[in-house]
């Protein structure tokens, strides 16, 4: 395999509420921290990839971020429109740009402020007809998927609950997490439904915050000689319609196959995962479509194999979207990097690879990233 790109810097703002802060201000703070972490001067950045905020679409947004960062000599700059799959896809784009010589040091960043600002994006109707049926919000799509999974595969409320309980347990021990409150399965089951079969504890937090990573070539990383570089081993992406032929099988399958093939790994080799948990059912389907278990078996896998720190596949070790921050995905990438550096808060012993996933929209877009040392 040719030279791999490496992640050399990670940075984020505090998670929670940032009243009055613009998304650009949050991004500048995150990028400043990521550069500091990388030990690299701002002027070295010649590639910038920006996922626009979920709460407000804005054209030429990446250019505005570049201006706020005082970056006027970029060789490549833009944004990729895939919702929560975009952060990983932009790391893939940055890798391609670096390896083809289009840029040398790239920053991938995201920020949003739906907690202090508008959370309209999470409760809207997609069109006029949906409004008439009361088909509102993002959660309902995932509830619809979960119900089908329950009907076809016998998945239970307890199966969903165990995902929330484990991820919340990780978040409860993360000093940076927005929600540091552990949850028992009994607590979970006693809460009312929001959109049945989902409860509030099945759903991502609403959060303000920004996060950034710095990615470059192995050669530049060696010259810099900073912290342990984390290599981009593989990636893939896929889109699929909201009304897939089989609702319970998704684009995650094709996305992961490409990523595993590029990395030369199989699900069996994977030591830890950071799976996009905007709603608990996405964890179920990702475990199945990635091949960690067979279709319909994710509940069993979680129960029998374990997704905690000592389990077969420790996942969302800093609390994910359910507990660390509701930010759509950058926190998962950052936690995977911390785990592979050996600097995570809840460290998985001698981890040398990690899988990260991203979902966008109502599971129409998917992106997979495999990192390693």
């Amino acid at each position: 395999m040719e030279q791999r790109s490496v992640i050399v810097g990670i940075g984020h703002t505090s998670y929670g509420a940032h009243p009055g802060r613009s998304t650009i201000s949050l991004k500048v703070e995150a990028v400043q921290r990521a550069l500091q972490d990388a030990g690299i001067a701002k002027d070295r950045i010649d590639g910038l990839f920006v996922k626009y905020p979920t709460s407000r679409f804005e054209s030429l947004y990446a250019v505005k971020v570049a201006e706020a960062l005082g970056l006027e000599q970029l060789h490549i700059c833009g944004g990729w429109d895939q919702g929560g799959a975009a952060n990983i896809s932009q790391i893939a784009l940055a890798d391609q740009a670096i390896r083809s010589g289009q840029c040398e040091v790239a920053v991938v960043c995201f920020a949003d402020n739906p907690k202090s600002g508008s959370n309209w994006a999470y409760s809207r109707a997609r069109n006029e007809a949906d409004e008439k049926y009361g088909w509102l919000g993002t959660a309902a799509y995932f509830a619809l998927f979960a119900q089908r999974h329950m009907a076809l595969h016998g998945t239970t409320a307890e199966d969903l609950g165990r995902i929330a309980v484990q991820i919340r347990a990780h978040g409860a021990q993360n000093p940076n997490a927005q929600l540091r409150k552990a949850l028992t399965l009994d607590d979970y089951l006693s809460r009312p439904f929001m959109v049945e079969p989902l409860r509030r504890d099945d759903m991502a937090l609403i959060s303000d915050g920004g996060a950034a990573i710095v990615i470059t070539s192995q050669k530049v990383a060696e010259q810099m000689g900073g912290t342990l570089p984390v290599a981009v081993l593989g990636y893939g992406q896929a889109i699929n319609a909201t009304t897939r032929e089989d609702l319970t099988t998704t684009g995650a399958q094709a996305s992961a196959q490409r990523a595993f093939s590029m990395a030369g790994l199989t699900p069996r080799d994977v030591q830890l995962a950071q799976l996009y948990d905007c709603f608990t059912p996405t964890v179920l389907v990702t475990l199945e479509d990635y091949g960690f278990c067979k279709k319909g078996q994710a509940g069993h896998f979680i129960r029998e194999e374990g997704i905690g720190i000592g389990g077969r596949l420790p996942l969302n070790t800093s609390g994910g979207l359910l507990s660390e921050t509701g930010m759509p995905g950058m926190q998962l990438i950052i936690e995977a990097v911390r785990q592979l550096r050996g600097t995570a808060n809840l460290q998985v012993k001698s981890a040398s690879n990690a899988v990260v996933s991203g979902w966008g929209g109502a599971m129409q877009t998917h992106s997979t990233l495999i990192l390693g040392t």
Partner: protein
Amino acid sequence: MTQHTNSPDHLAGYWKKVGEQSLTCMACKQCAHHFLPSLDACPQCLSFDVHLVDASGRARLLSWVTFHHAYRPELVSRVPYIVALVELEEGPRMITNLPMPSTGLVAGMELTVRFVPHGDELIPNFEPQIAELENGLNT
């Protein structure tokens, strides 16, 4: 030959027919693909030679959710309500409502369209065929 005319307003036509208590879906005259929501070109063969055709009103239940949370103040009096994804006999899938309660609903069960008032218009809803509901309750 296919005429590329100005986009006919299939969506308006769909809702006009609903007002007349008739359910329709889009059909392509070139490849016979049936689809919803309304588009002015066939997503299968990309022909613009598409039109609304009557649907039988029979469908199968794919999945459903129950909204207990009212996302809008005007929905407070409506919760809990069921939203379902159904597959029409002709193939297209659509979002719709089913009557409460959700007890006895089973994936794959047969449904029939009925038209219910929504403000001063009608919307298509579906309900389980009585025999299906009894089967569901027994399983």
